[in-house]
């Protein structure tokens, strides 16, 4: 009878969508035929570790009929029930050759029993229940222990750098031509009686590069105020505009030239990147700024802004951590602060001991990173060349230090 039902099952069932390790709604027209295909073995159901609870991991050994070629198995079905006897509800299907499934709807603290059955076309093979498996929350994510260790190390190095600088041991930092050129560009703007344009990127205030851009804006605001150079700061995000208003006032007050922010110097354009290009480009063509500063996170608008700035003959200085946009900024701007230099720019401009000390702390961590990368290269090369066994686990241990998850 069962075999007859299996033969009568619609052929479309074979091409039903297959879930890849994610549950799919039940409703499959599958018939269970004992011993039709060999069942998967060593089925295990366990709580997913290092999470907030709510997920159960299922692992199994493939069915003996699951072979790359001429195998009977066309997939596996995962079923779940609150009791060993059932009723079992279909959670999802996975492709043949798959031995892993995550039940992300297990709920926290609820015991469940699972079955993993091999499929041969529309025929479901036999399966034994495993369980109970209970999803529980863990108080610490052990997979992120290495990240915590690095974060603590980094924080300690930075705090050490700040403390040393505050005690008078100011670090000697490499001068960045781009930072030095900021003052020259502002002086040029005064000579030409033209404004300075400053763009803080196209990301919102929750991007650290935008905050770094605002730190540079603070210094630029002080210097332009001291030189009586008008400043234009168009924005793509109104929250950044609001923060930049405070920044401008702060910078001017710090430079001894307190003044309220003119709505025509710090303003919002629109929330679209090419709207920013159109608006800022229009300002460049109309007002011909002597200098254009781009500090923050940029995408495709970087090239357009840089090229328009070139056509109006402005001195252009940029800084971004977006590696993909650096070639465009390098091609269009006179000076570019690459990656981390953006974050050091405000320290170099302000010469604030605490900020300079912070940069020193960063350098200490980078020295450590360089050392570990060098050690990793050495271990990997020696393991490859000599084939000496103990080097491989040492290399694996070193690599595991940098695992994220």
């Amino acid at each position, binding site marked *: 009878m069962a075999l007859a039902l299996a033969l009568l099952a619609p052929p479309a069932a074979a091409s039903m969508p297959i879930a890849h390790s994610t549950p799919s709604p039940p409703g499959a027209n599958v018939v269970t035929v004992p011993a039709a295909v060999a069942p998967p073995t060593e089925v295990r159901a366990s709580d997913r570790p290092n999470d907030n609870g709510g997920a159960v991991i299922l692992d199994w050994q493939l069915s003996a009929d699951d072979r790359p070629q001429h195998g009977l198995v066309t997939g596996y079905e995962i079923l779940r029930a609150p009791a060993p006897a059932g009723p079992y509800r279909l959670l999802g299907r996975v492709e043949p050759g798959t031995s892993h499934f995550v039940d992300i709807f297990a709920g926290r603290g609820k015991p469940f029993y699972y079955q993993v059955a091999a499929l041969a076309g529309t025929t479901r093979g036999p399966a034994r229940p495993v369980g109970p498996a209970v999803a529980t929350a863990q108080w610490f994510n052990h997979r992120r222990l290495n990240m915590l260790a690095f974060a603590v190390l980094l924080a300690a190095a*930075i705090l050490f750098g700040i403390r040393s600088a505050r005690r008078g041991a100011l670090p000697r930092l490499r001068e960045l031509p781009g930072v030095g050129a900021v003052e020259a560009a502002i002086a040029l703007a005064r000579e030409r009686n033209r404004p300075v344009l400053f763009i803080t990127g196209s990301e919102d205030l929750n991007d650290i590069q935008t905050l770094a851009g605002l730190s540079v804006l603070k210094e630029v605001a002080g210097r332009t105020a001291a030189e009586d150079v008008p400043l234009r700061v168009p924005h793509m995000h*109104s929250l950044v505009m609001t923060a930049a208003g405070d920044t401008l006032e702060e910078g001017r007050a710090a430079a001894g030239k307190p003044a309220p922010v003119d*709505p025509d110097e710090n303003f919002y354009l629109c929330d679209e990147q090419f709207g920013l290009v159109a608006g800022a480009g229009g300002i460049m063509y109309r007002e011909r700024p002597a200098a254009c500063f781009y500090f923050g996170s940029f995408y495709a608008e970087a090239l357009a802004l840089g090229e328009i700035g070139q056509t109006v003959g402005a001195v252009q200085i940029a800084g971004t951590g977006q590696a993909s946009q650096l070639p465009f900024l390098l091609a269009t701007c006179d000076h570019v602060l690459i990656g*981390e230099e953006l974050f050091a720019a405000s320290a170099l401009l302000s010469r604030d001991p605490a900020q300079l000390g912070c940069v020193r702390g960063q350098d200490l961590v980078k020295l450590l*990173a360089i050392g570990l990368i060098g050690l990793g290269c050495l271990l990997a090369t020696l393991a490859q060349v000599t084939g000496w066994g103990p080097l491989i686990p040492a290399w694996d241990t070193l690599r595991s230090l940098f695992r994220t998850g």
Partner: protein
Amino acid sequence: MSLVAAVPRGIVLVVAIVLIVAMFVPPLEPLREEFSLFFNIIAAFAFVLGGASLIGRHARKIRRRASGYGYSVVCIGAFGITLAAGLLKLGNPTGIGGDVTARGSVFAWIVRYVFGPADSGLFALLAFFIASAAFRAFRVRNRESTIMLVTAFLLLLGRTFLGGLVTSWLPDRLEAFELPNVIPWIMSVPLKAGSRAILIGVAVGAIATSLRIILGIDRPYRGEGK
């Protein structure tokens, strides 16, 4: 320290500590999404300030009859029409409670036939910008630009059918130096090494800047100078 300065600093410190701890304590992980939601709510309120800034700036231009004030009239007009179409769901077949971008609505029409082409047009300009930028970047001025020119030329050549032909005469033992084999090496060794170095620097710099802001060492926008 004034209360006006102390309150924001306290909020930054507490929120930052909670979010850092949430990275390592799974039961606190939902808080990360909650705080993102708070950010979006605040950003939505700030959008009103952005709109006010836009209207105010262009209204002043019109009042002063500043040069090109006609564009400001167009800008305010377009802003008002789009805002009305979106808020009142003009022509929206799904009604006032429906999706603002539903097909057939005035808002969807504006997005599709006005905003879309304008945005795409500006995006298309990048093709011309990239040509002029490449011309400037690849001029041989010094050693660095020469290296860049040679590398770019090899990459461009290697990506075309000519790349294989140019070096096909090399003997088998020098197969590694054939252009189709050199290009993947450039991409996966020197280029990847350089970009990873930048990424590591950015990551460390970002953490350091975050720490500076959390500890109040770098205060770009707290208004303490007022």
